């Protein structure tokens, strides 16, 4: 039993690492722009399909797809940004509907381009098992867990040290005050969109390397990312990481202790529970009540 639970915790933590990468992008954009980008999961999926194309047509390891994925996903994200920026009235709600529409477009475009077939990496190197004592994992999971930790540390450093990073944080917490300080909020919004798409590109390639992708999966990713940002409370990188790990571990434990059929239910219940009991999330301070 102990062995089972240890493995569940381990699997959950690894899964949480990649969830965190996706959620972080969503949280960053929400922080600066107060916009939930419902097409975020589709952007991640787009990167995953680019990885598939690169792997299957060039026969190389999917990590070599990262530059191309960065290019395309960033371009797509910038386009999304400019569309959202065009909204004039009632931005909070209209942006939801707008990005929802973009998500529909992307899902169907992905299906048109890559067909409904399921895809996953063929790289044997990535699928090699790695055994640490009683704990098992796939090499790709470990590799990308480390990568996502590194990215998060980098982002944290960037947000706290660089001028742009501080501007992003300033805009997230006090938009008007930031303006007075000479920060151009629109520029920082764009930067946050680009950073989010960089994270999404890595997350997408990771997803392709250890999981199975299909066109309808983007929506699931968006919802999971949103759940994590709620768990975290807005605007805290460690919070997002903890929220993601919490979700990953909860899911894995539900499978181990109850049934896998209840895994999604457990995630949703966790989400609602936190929403009601701790409306500001585990770490957040910003209010989300009306």
């Amino acid at each position, binding site marked *: 039993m102990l062995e089972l639970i240890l493995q569940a915790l381990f699997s959950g933590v690894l899964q949480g690492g990649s969830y965190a990468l996706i959620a972080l992008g969503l949280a960053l954009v929400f922080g600066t722009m107060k916009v939930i980008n419902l097409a975020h999961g589709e952007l991640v999926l787009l990167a995953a399909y680019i990885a598939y194309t690169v792997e299957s047509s060039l026969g190389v390891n999917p990590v070599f797809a990262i530059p191309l994925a960065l290019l395309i996903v960033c371009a797509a994200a910038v386009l999304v940004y400019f569309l959202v920026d065009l909204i004039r009235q009632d931005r909070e709600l209209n942006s939801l509907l707008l990005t929802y529409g973009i998500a529909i477009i992307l899902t169907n475009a992905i299906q048109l381009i890559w067909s409904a077939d399921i895809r996953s990496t063929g790289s044997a190197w990535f699928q090699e098992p790695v055994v640490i004592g009683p704990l098992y994992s796939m090499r790709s999971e470990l590799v990308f867990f480390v990568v996502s930790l590194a990215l998060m540390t980098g982002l944290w450093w960037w947000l706290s040290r660089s001028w742009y990073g501080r501007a992003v944080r300033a805009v997230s917490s006090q938009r008007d005050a930031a303006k007075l300080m000479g920060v151009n909020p629109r520029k920082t919004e764009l930067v946050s969109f680009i950073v989010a798409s960089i994270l999404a590109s890595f997350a997408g390639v990771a997803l392709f390397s250890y999981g199975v992708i299909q066109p309808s999966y983007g929506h699931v990713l968006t919802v999971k990312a949103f759940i994590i940002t709620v768990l975290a409370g807005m605007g805290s990188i460690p919070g997002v990481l903890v929220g993601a790990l919490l979700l990953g571990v909860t899911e894995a434990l539900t499978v181990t202790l109850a049934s896998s*059929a209840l895994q999604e239910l457990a995630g949703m219940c966790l989400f609602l529970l936190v929403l009601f009991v701790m409306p500001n999330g585990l770490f957040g301070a910003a209010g989300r009540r009306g």
Partner: protein
Amino acid sequence: MNRLYKKTVGLTLLAGLFLGCGVAAAKEFLVGVEIPLTGSLARVGAGMNEGISVAVDIFNKTNGKHTIKTIVIDDESAPAKAIAAVEKLASQEVVAISGGYGSNNIAPASDAANKLGLPYITSGGVDDSLVARGYKTFFRINNTVGYQKAMVGLIDALKVKSASIVYSTKEATANLAKDVEKELTTKGFKVGMHAFDPAITDFKPIINKIKLQDKPEVILMCGYENDYVGILRAAKVLKPKVKAMIGVWSLATAKMAADFPDLMPWVYGTALLPFPAEFKTADGKLFAETYQKLYNKEPDYLGQFGYVQSLLLFEAIARAADNDTLHKGGVAEELRKTDRETLVGRVQFNDKGDNINFVHRMGQHQNGKIGIVWPSEAANAKPNFPAVPW
């Protein structure tokens, strides 16, 4: 000009009447195809559709007398759209419908077809409730029992005594898993059951439970392609001490062997034919050739089912046309009289439209090929047992 035109039309009509009254003439018949080409079932629907097109091509070349034309409507994997598709086809005067995937779409679609008096033949839904309705217009060439027989048959042949079943909570997979469990339990097997939500991707916790708690001799998988990949990957990492990995549909296919060469070795799944296909019958050879010509690839099981169901239907239409009973319920009548060897074995329908002879075959991935290992009379290879992908 105008008068000439009218005259021609009049003459043609007259001629048509004459011929129609006399011996049935060679004629083009419209057949409706209601099938998912988008949505969650897009992939399997497209596979079946390929088989249907092959059937049209072959029938039109070989029949010599009648020809068939199909009208394809995408039902978008949605019941309401499936009904609308059937109704639209009816308004375009099709004589019967071939297609459908997923019992949830087939049930309402065939219901609508029944109301309109259109025969409906499918291979896309194995749920028992479809035939329990007892419609006179409904036919299908496969069923859960056939899959169950194949799985249990293989397990018997392998002489193991315990199994863990990993199954998706979707309807077809859950039903099959429970039926197999029931049969195995009555045979004195030790069976562990593990349901999973179709949305999950990480199967390690489930496989670990099987590895540490169930400790079975074989793992049975009732799922779809993405589930198999996830399960096999998790199993490859955790390496449970089992002797075989056995799945059902969409697994022992050339496509899976090509896409996931490192996951598939020695995995079992239902398969109609070995790969590379060895078609012994003339019918089979023709099918494979035509398929190759139209789609430039080896046929898969979806294509084979789609082909068989459609060819049986077209033949029944031809017979009904010859007997001049086409519009008097003759197609359904002729379908019911079907008794024929096909690519999926002998087909005979009972009064509820189910194929009483349907038993699937089990194949095994063997060095990039697929060998049929059960039943022995259809086998072209010996099962490699015990063997797993790791």
